[in-house]
């Protein structure tokens, strides 16, 4: 979700195999660099494989270009990586959030074959995505300050995952401003 010169990215903490919960401390939001984060929902093995591939590509980019990737560029990279596997896809829906040039917040989501969906307010993915759309739509206000954004995102996450048996078991919220990063479990 986008706020005033900041963004928040949040996820639940459940790792499950259909109805069985295996762990309640699974990490789904990953850092690419200080101002770029990716959240991956879907099949856990593909979440982990995709994250490893993306970090690899970004590190190579950093070595060659001697700078961090812009969020828009990274989103295109993710989209390309996913479409490469068009007929044998990674079963993942990424949510990308970052601060671009002039610390302008950037968010986007994709389906599992890389169809980018840019938004100015919020993006969601996962098994509780319909609930999340509803919760975010009703709670979102433009230009929220980081503290208010944090509250809004937490409430939206909690409300939606509570209605989905496959999501939940904890939450993780990360709020990123140009100067600091706040994470709460």
């Amino acid at each position, binding site marked *: 979700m986008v706020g005033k010169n900041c963004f928040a990215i949040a996820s639940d903490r459940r*790792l499950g*195999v259909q109805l*069985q*919960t*295996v*762990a309640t401390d*699974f990490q789904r939001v990953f850092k690419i660099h200080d101002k770029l984060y990716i959240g991956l929902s879907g*099949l*856990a*093995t593909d979440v*982990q*494989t995709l994250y490893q591939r993306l970090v690899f590509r970004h590190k190579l980019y950093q070595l060659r270009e001697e700078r961090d990737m812009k969020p828009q560029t990274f989103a295109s990279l993710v989209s390309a990586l996913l479409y490469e596997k068009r007929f*044998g896809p990674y079963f993942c829906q990424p949510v990308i959030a970052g601060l671009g040039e002039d610390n302008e917040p950037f968010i986007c989501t994709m389906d599992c074959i890389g169809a980018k969906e840019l938004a100015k307010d919020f993006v969601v993915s996962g098994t509780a995505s319909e609930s999340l759309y509803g919760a975010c739509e009703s709670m979102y206000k433009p230009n929220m300050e980081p503290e208010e954004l944090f509250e809004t995102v937490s409430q939206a996450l909690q409300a939606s995952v509570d209605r989905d048996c496959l999501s939940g078991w904890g939450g993780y919220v990360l709020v990123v401003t140009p100067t600091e990063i706040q994470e709460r479990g």
Partner: protein
Amino acid sequence: MECVLGVVGRDFAVVAADTSAVQSILVHKSDEDKVMVLDSHKLMGASGEPGDRVQFTEYIQKNLHLYQFRNNIPLSTAATANFTRGELATALRKNPYSVNILLAGYDADVGASLYYIDYIATFHKIEKGAFGYGAYFCLSLMDKLYRPDMSVEEAVDLVDKCIKEIRLRLVVAPQKFIIKIVDKDGAREYARRAYTDSPSEAATVTA
């Protein structure tokens, strides 16, 4: 009906597995060791397709030894777990292995750790876990009774309670189990659990 379960205690980890080798309705043998000792301080409990299970765990074991020979230093538990996950992930979209793994190890700097790696290469570090139909009974028992920093006796008691529950409640339940432990002194067999005096057995004996 194969069950593998694992628990981390204070500076040790316990992995238990049933010892039945079953094909359809036939029990080939009931003393099959499914918890492989990978090296001096690592255990790998595996369940799944029998051929894949033996082949894959031996493959990991040999690669572990190769690393040690080449580099004169053993691979850490975390590195082993990530290597195992990588092998499963690479094979996943070509020629997948059907093996679920609980990898337990002891490292001097980190202590004891347990890793859950399922057949599609889902990787997670856990304190307690189980695979198979037995997991439906064990996981909630562990949630209730597990505490961090348990002693060996307490951890094995928890494992015994899980085994008892599996024997009692799982249809066609495996009866015999093997329990292995890994701590600073190494990975070794701790105990085997054979038949117990369940009510149904007592009835058979007296009749």
